């Protein structure tokens, strides 16, 4: 299977010369098992160009089926959806997967994104057939030749990580998440930053530990681990409650899970290409010095990684 990055940025799209190389579009990754329909993970602004490229294939004539896995519904992970061209072609089928909520149906959350007064084309008027699938943690299912599993992360309003296995290759998409050490992020709004390294209530510590164990287990032996590394250690210390990790947190999960390639992802909007180069180099140096067996790369728009026996 092939993994291609269409948007690598967190929080908000950042156009400009300083992001030309890594790209300014928000989160979107295409996973394509050999000869099969695409599995799209997250629908930030990167999905606009992906959608256009898909219209050159069967989707242009309304004969396509796409699966979209949403980590969570924060804007930077869904804001490209109304600009996804296959939606506007009759005959296409799009299946959208995201975590089940207790309070609202997924369909209602997505519908409100395109309703008056926010967007001129309501979901109900789109020509493609759109189906919503609500997931619970630990769910596993087949999409064509691919096998998908998911587990929850430590992020405000809760995000899901996904693992996709196909063609003898495997990948995990882990964004957005805070490390599992200083604060439990669920539904409550946390206004003041908790103390990093402070002592946690044992019940909360246990919940975080089991969440992390679930993630490490899901990542076991994968070829590619894509990980939210929006923060530097200093930024994390100032904002542990914002729900993002540092490269060091990603390295620790990568080590424990015995993965092959770690991919830094969900870059901070304020990060210039030069700063991101530096973060990549520092992370690579750290892993080299520690003798880690995995490779470290940083996601950029247009990057394609081939996994398993594809190509």
């Amino acid at each position, binding site marked *: 299977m092939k993994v291609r990055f269409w948007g690598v940025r967190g929080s*908000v799209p950042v156009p400009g010369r300083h992001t030309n190389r890594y790209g300014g*579009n928000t989160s979107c990754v295409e996973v394509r098992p050999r000869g099969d329909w695409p599995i799209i993970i997250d629908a930030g602004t990167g999905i606009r160009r992906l959608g256009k490229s898909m219209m050159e294939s069967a989707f242009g004539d309304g004969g396509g089926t796409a699966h979209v896995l949403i980590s969570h519904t924060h804007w930077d992970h869904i804001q490209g959806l109304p600009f996804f061209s296959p939606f506007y072609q009759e005959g296409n089928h799009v299946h959208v997967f995201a975590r089940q909520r207790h309070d609202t149906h997924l369909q209602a959350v997505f519908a409100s994104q395109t309703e008056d*007064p926010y*967007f001129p084309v309501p979901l109900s008027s789109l020509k493609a057939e759109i189906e919503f699938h609500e997931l619970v943690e630990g769910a596993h299912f087949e999409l064509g030749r691919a096998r998908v599993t998911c587990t929850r992360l430590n992020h405000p*309003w809760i995000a899901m990580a996904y693992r996709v296995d196909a063609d003898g290759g495997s990948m995990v998409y882990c964004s957005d998440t805070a490390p599992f050490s200083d604060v439990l992020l669920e539904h409550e709004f946390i206004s003041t930053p908790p103390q990093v390294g402070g002592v946690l209530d044992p019940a909360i510590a246990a919940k975080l530990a089991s969440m992390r164990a679930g993630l490490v287990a899901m990542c076991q032996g994968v070829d590619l681990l894509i990980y939210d590394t929006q923060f530097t250690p200093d930024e994390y210390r100032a904002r542990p409650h914002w729900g993002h990790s540092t490269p060091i947190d990603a390295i620790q999960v990568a080590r424990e899970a015995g993965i092959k390639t770690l991919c830094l992802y969900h870059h901070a909007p304020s990060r210039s290409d030069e700063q991101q180069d530096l973060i990549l180099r520092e992370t690579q140096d750290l892993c080299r010095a520690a003798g880690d067996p995995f490779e470290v790369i940083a996601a950029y728009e247009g990057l394609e990684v081939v996994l398993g026996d594809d190509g």
Partner: protein
Amino acid sequence: MRLHVWGVRGSIPAPGPETNRYGGNTSCVAIQTAAGELIIIDMGTGLLGLGNSLLPGDFGKGKGHATILLSHAHWDHIQGLGFFVPVFIPGNHFTLFGHAKSSSMLEGILEGQMNPNFSPLYTLRNLGATFDVRAVIPGEPFEASGVRITGRPNPHGSTTALAFRVEEGDRSFVYASDVGYEDGGPSPEMLELYRGASVLLHDCTYTPEHQEKRRNRGFSSYVDAADAATRAAVGHLVMFHYDQDYADADVDALRDACRAELDARGGAGIGLTAAAEGLELEI
């Protein structure tokens, strides 16, 4: 008055080397009055750059205040709010004027964007800055930031978008983005709002060919912009809100075509600028 342009794009931010010159951020401009007051018009992602530029001044100390004029609540006009650094600094104050049946409905629209399904901010009340949200009465002038402002709705697809006229002394600036006129162009009331403006910033999303294919979306072509500018006898026209698929070379061509259109309509004396991020224009 001085105009600062922070975001020129319509619909969705368009990052990439092909938009480096005009910029890929969505709609946001600022007016600095002669007295030094700040008026922000629309809150697309261009608002991020404006926010950062304000931090060395009063807004960095929590002593800033500004007027925000909101044309309408489509995403590309509000999506910068949660990333506008001055809103996180307690003490800053914003008075926001927009279009809704009531002020509380307008506040509800802004809250919808901050809803925890979509944003880690949960609600406007979690921002450090305070907001005074007010619905504009169409056609009725009001005072804000020491200048006279009038808002009137233009047709915009299935909805409307406010155009604003900002007047200070004998100078006037009109913001008219996101407008798809009925056949015959601007209504008499809108022409009155634009009339004789020192600078008219106008929706210029499309070429006429592209507009023809996307009529229902409610955007202007450069022909509509040139027509409005000449009929209202404005001093200067600023093109704005380019389609997300237009590369810099496409916008260059749009500007050349707009110049020719102005000249052909007897508007050879009207100055023309294609808005780009970073543009500053003395009004």
